[in-house]
């Protein structure tokens, strides 16, 4: 469901308050809605104070890993001997996720303000906002807002009259999912192939251009001005019985629901309620079969697990999955889980940077085995082969793309083994498999 529309009564609307309000896109419109107050207040504090506030708010990274944001910021060297950088990860490409796109489309200044505060807190001269190449509209809107922010003295050599120089630039990607991986993103900014780097060194020691760097997701940074304005205690109080996961989170819901779209709820919100109430339930005459709650890289849940899953970092782990990026993909009883597993494997095969053997070979091999099963030529031992391969693809590579592909395979076979076996037994019509693109 696109914006504008009225939020559902069960939503807690903070980041998405001005989604659909075109006036909020301009500098004047943003200031009228209370914008840039948090940046002004931050610039009057010491950088370490800002870090402390964010640390005590309990904000955790919204890109997938859930690492405490303030703690990440505190890893940056306190004594500056080299330039520092902030990278904003706007390379949103995790299948099922489309929240950062809306933040940039509707509230570009919220992101700029969040970046500027973070940039000041970690004492960085420059922020690079890395936006995926396909996001042409967010790119245009973000660039216009940046120009507006420079024109009004928010950025530049005397940011908001503070006497400090803050610069911020957009770096456009060119089509590569892997560039959402933090070190691949840094290589891509440097004009290289987007290959992830071996860690250590970690970005806080040696990031983009070999300098101390912090990288945060769009949604994480957009939450920062609210925390500065309303205080860390307020943010911490936004939680449903689990103090380890607090704040609000945007969930992008796609697939077989009545009203797909973005929904902002307090951490810990029940996944079943998100699907049944906010999204209006399943399509007419259909029933829930499965759900991937955190973007395609997290394990899939069956119906029972979906209905009892709580949407926060710990609640998802309890169900054997992860909160990830909050991309909720909903499948009804019409979905062919074997075919969709193959499609996801094909995604990972296509997006593998091909540095590590386990990933380069493993993702392609996974696709070929699944295609064979779909064509009705699978053998009983193929499931064990897939699982064995998935094991070889887990925990052995530079980044987790390979692990993500393996997680899809392992979790789908675990929950929907009967569908795979039906193809093997020939009780299921061989699917028509479109030519591979991997």
């Amino acid at each position, binding site marked *: *469901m*696109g914006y504008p529309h009225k939020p559902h009564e069960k939503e807690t609307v903070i980041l998405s308050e001005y989604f659909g309000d075109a006036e909020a896109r301009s500098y004047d419109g943003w200031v009228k809605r209370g914008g840039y107050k948090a940046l002004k207040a931050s610039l009057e504090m010491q950088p370490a104070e800002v870090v402390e506030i964010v640390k005590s708010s309990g904000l955790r990274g919204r890109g997938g890993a859930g690492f405490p944001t303030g703690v990440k910021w505190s890893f940056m060297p306190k004594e500056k001997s080299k*330039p520092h950088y902030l990278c904003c990860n706007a390379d*949103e*490409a*995790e*299948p*099922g*996720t*489309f929240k950062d*796109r809306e933040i940039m489309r509707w509230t570009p200044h919220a992101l700029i303000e969040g970046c500027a505060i973070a940039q000041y807190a970690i004492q960085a001269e*420059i922020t690079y906002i890395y936006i*995926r*190449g*396909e*996001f*042409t*509209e967010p790119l245009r809107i973000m660039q216009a807002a940046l120009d507006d922010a420079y024109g009004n003295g928010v950025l530049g050599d005397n940011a908001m009259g503070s006497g400090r120089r803050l*610069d911020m*630039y957009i*770096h*456009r*990607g*060119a*089509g*590569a*999912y892997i560039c959402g991986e933090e070190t691949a993103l840094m290589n*891509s*900014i*440097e*004009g*290289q*192939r*987007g290959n992830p780097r071996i860690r250590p060194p970690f970005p806080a020691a040696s990031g983009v*251009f070999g300098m101390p760097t912090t990288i945060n997701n769009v949604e994480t940074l957009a939450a920062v001005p609210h925390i500065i304005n309303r205080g860390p205690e307020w943010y911490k109080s936004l939680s449903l019985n689990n103090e380890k996961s607090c704040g609000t989170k945007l969930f*992008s*819901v*796609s*697939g*077989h629901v009545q009203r*797909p*779209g*973005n929904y902002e709820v307090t951490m810990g919100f029940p996944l079943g309620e998100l699907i049944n109430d906010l999204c209006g339930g399943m399509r007419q005459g259909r029933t829930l079969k499965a759900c991937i709650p955190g973007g*395609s890289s997290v394990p899939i849940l069956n119906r029972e697990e979906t209905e009892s899953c709580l949407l926060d970092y710990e609640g998802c782990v309890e169900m054997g999955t992860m909160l990830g990026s909050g*991309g909720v*993909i909903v*499948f009804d009883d*019409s*979905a062919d889980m074997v075919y*969709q597993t193959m*499609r*996801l494997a094909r*995604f990972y095969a*296509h*997006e593998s*940077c091909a540095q590590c053997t386990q990933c380069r070979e493993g993702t392609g091999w996974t696709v070929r085995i699944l295609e064979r099963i779909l064509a009705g030529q699978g053998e009983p031992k193929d499931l064990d082969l897939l699982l064995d391969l998935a094991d070889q693809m887990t925990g052995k590579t530079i980044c987790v793309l390979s692990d993500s592909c393996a997680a899809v395979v392992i979790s789908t076979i675990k929950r929907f083994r009967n569908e795979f076996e039906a193809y093997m037994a020939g009780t299921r019509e061989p699917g028509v498999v*479109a*030519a591979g*693109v991997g």
Partner: protein
Amino acid sequence: MEQTTEYAPVFTGDNRKRLDEVLARYPAKRAGLLAALWMVQEQHGWVSDEAMAETADVLGLTPSYIKGVVTFYTMYHQHPVGKTFVQVCTTTPCNICGAEEVVEAFLEHTGCGDLGATSPDGKFTVIEVECLGACGFATPVMMNEDVIENVTPEKVPDLVKQYS
């Protein structure tokens, strides 16, 4: 005999100025490469060997290095494509909502026939793309720089007409 047309350089006049502005944002010249390649594609519609050589020259890199980067990123075209480049998202969230039927409709109505092939009139090239990041608006389709949401097979003939 093969027809040859003279290569028109990209980084002259205003474009050169634009590139210099981009380069000023980074501590290293190489960081301007992705932006430079976008400028090449904007002017020529694809990134040819000649364009790679020119870009290498301007940024102080080697043509082989540039080729390594061009081949990594899927949005840079390594051969000419139709006037309108159509990318239909067919990754899982869109796939379960009927994206493959949208692909079929585009292949039929543009006359492209096959994925990656350009229509005989040179107007269209259609490909499947992995996740456009608009999964709640299945099926999203990119037509050159425009992202069109909620495309169904029924809407395809009008879109093809509009971009012809």
